[in-house]
């Protein structure tokens, strides 16, 4: 064989091998992309890097150095009516709906939340424990944190946004859980934003749905715990939006309320450690436990482009499912998520409340290590 042809043949074989290598490299890189994305997401597997609020710290902040909050303060009692964000009673189309926004739940509606029977919590808890709900309940890790004590009671701290659909869906479960330890004298009908699925939800207080601002406080009372509620607001006809933390902090400071000011410092303090850092809304603290997201994510099946079953439900329909959850996936999921919150609170108050004696609550505490 002439020398030139031999060289050419060798070169062709080499280039073929190289092509195969290239294809292999592409396949490997795709797999690597998936694996690296996954490992990035698994908090426990990445380097535990402490990020200071105003700097770039690199050493872990010891738990003992968390500021311990044990304060005496009143809580914020919100207004029943906001002149710039009045209740709307006209009927509007699903997906772009504000029907009933900022109207108070009537006594029978409120009773569904305040007087939910223990049997629903028991049933849903058992279903959570046997894995019936899969991903719909308990998707976020609970991190142990020092309790935020106000007037001798631990606190539930909530930082959410009225525009956010996770918050919208999750407030139902939160309300059910909180009602086990006290009661709401008022709750308000609300929605997540048009751009964020327009879910029917509860507001703790009338929402500033026309404004970029923050809502503070609730009409909740309990002998076991405090409820500190902060809902960031933006015009509800837009999409999800969140004011920068610095703006929320300014608004919190403007309230002049020690419990709220200190609770926000506490959130900032916890955000020095990646595990307990703010990752978006809802951000909640349940006594000794912090959650970086919603504990229930039941929005119904997708029924079209970014439209879910919950989008097309009215408040009355949601409340009907909560008042009789036996055949309702949504209702049972909300009760199960509430069970998780209840279990965290029970663990934080040494199981002092009557609800803590429910067998499913005890089982969840034990199963989840609360």
């Amino acid at each position, binding site marked *: 064989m002439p020398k030139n042809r031999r060289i050419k043949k060798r070169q062709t074989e080499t280039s073929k091998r190289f092509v195969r290598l290239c294809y292999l490299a592409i396949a490997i890189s795709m797999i690597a992309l998936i694996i690296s994305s996954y490992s990035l997401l698994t908090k426990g597997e*990445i380097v535990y890097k402490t990020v200071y609020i105003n700097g770039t710290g690199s050493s872990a902040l010891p738990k003992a150095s968390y500021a311990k909050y044990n304060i005496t303060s009143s809580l914020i009692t919100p207004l029943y009516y906001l002149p710039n964000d009045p209740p709307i009673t006209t009927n509007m189309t699903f997906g772009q709906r504000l029907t009933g926004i900022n109207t108070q739940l009537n006594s029978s509606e409120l009773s569904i939340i305040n007087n939910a029977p223990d049997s629903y919590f028991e049933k849903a808890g058992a279903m959570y424990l046997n894995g019936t709900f899969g991903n719909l309940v308990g998707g976020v890790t609970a991190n142990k944190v020092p309790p935020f004590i106000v007037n001798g009671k631990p606190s539930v701290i909530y930082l959410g946004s009225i525009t956010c659909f996770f*918050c919208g869906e999750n407030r139902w479960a939160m309300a059910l859980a909180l009602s086990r330890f006290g009661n709401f004298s008022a709750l308000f009908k609300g929605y997540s934003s048009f751009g964020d699925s327009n879910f029917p939800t509860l507001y703790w207080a009338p929402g500033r749905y026309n404004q970029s601002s923050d809502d503070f406080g609730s009409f909740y009372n309990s002998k076991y715990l405090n409820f500190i509620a902060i809902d960031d607001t933006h015009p509800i006809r837009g999409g999800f939006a969140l004011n920068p933390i610095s703006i929320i902090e300014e608004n919190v400071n403007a309230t002049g309320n020690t419990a709220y000011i200190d609770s926000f410092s506490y959130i900032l303090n916890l955000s020095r450690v990646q595990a307990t850092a703010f990752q978006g809304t809802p951000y909640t603290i349940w006594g000794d436990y912090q959650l970086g997201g919603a504990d229930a994510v039941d929005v119904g099946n997708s029924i079209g482009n970014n439209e879910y079953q919950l989008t097309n439900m009215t408040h009355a329909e949601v409340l009907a499912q909560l008042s009789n959850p036996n055949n309702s996936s949504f209702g049972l999921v909300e009760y199960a998520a509430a069970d998780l919150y209840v279990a965290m609170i029970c663990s934080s108050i040494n199981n002092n409340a009557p609800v803590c004696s429910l067998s499913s609550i005890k089982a969840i505490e034990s199963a989840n290590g609360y």
Partner: protein
Amino acid sequence: MPKNAQNKMRYIFLKRIFSSPIMVLAFAVIAILYYFLIHFLITVSSHGLFLITLPSYFIYMLSLTSSLLMTISIYQIHISLKNRILAVGEGATSAITTIAGGLITSCGCSSPILSTILYGIGVNIIGVSGAISFVASNQEWLIGIAILANLILSYYSLGKLYRLHAKKPKEKGR
């Protein structure tokens, strides 16, 4: 070469790529893989559920345009190897735009992926909350930019292809 002729050449090369069954298969497989990658990112971000607040055609468009860019890059590598010319494809960019697209689409009220990455590189809570808010409220625009970037790079890559193809193979040893 006049611009019209250049565009015609691009079209010819595009036709040539998609007249090859292997390339069509590669395009389909990569599009599906990219779709699953985006799906995966959204699912992990939304506690195991595929929840989106964008019309799903944005995700399909992103997967398809990323796959187009990757397929052209694979063909470019193939041609450059055939002609023994050193050339780098834009395939990596398609992976980057897909991942960025996945992160953007999965970013909503709660953004564990984005925040984990940002905290990981030393961004503080103010930066993270600002980024979450910015990305979530500009999702459509950001995905649109990613799709446009894929299309522009595909156009550029097709131009590079005919220039590569026009070059004569380097004969070593002469």
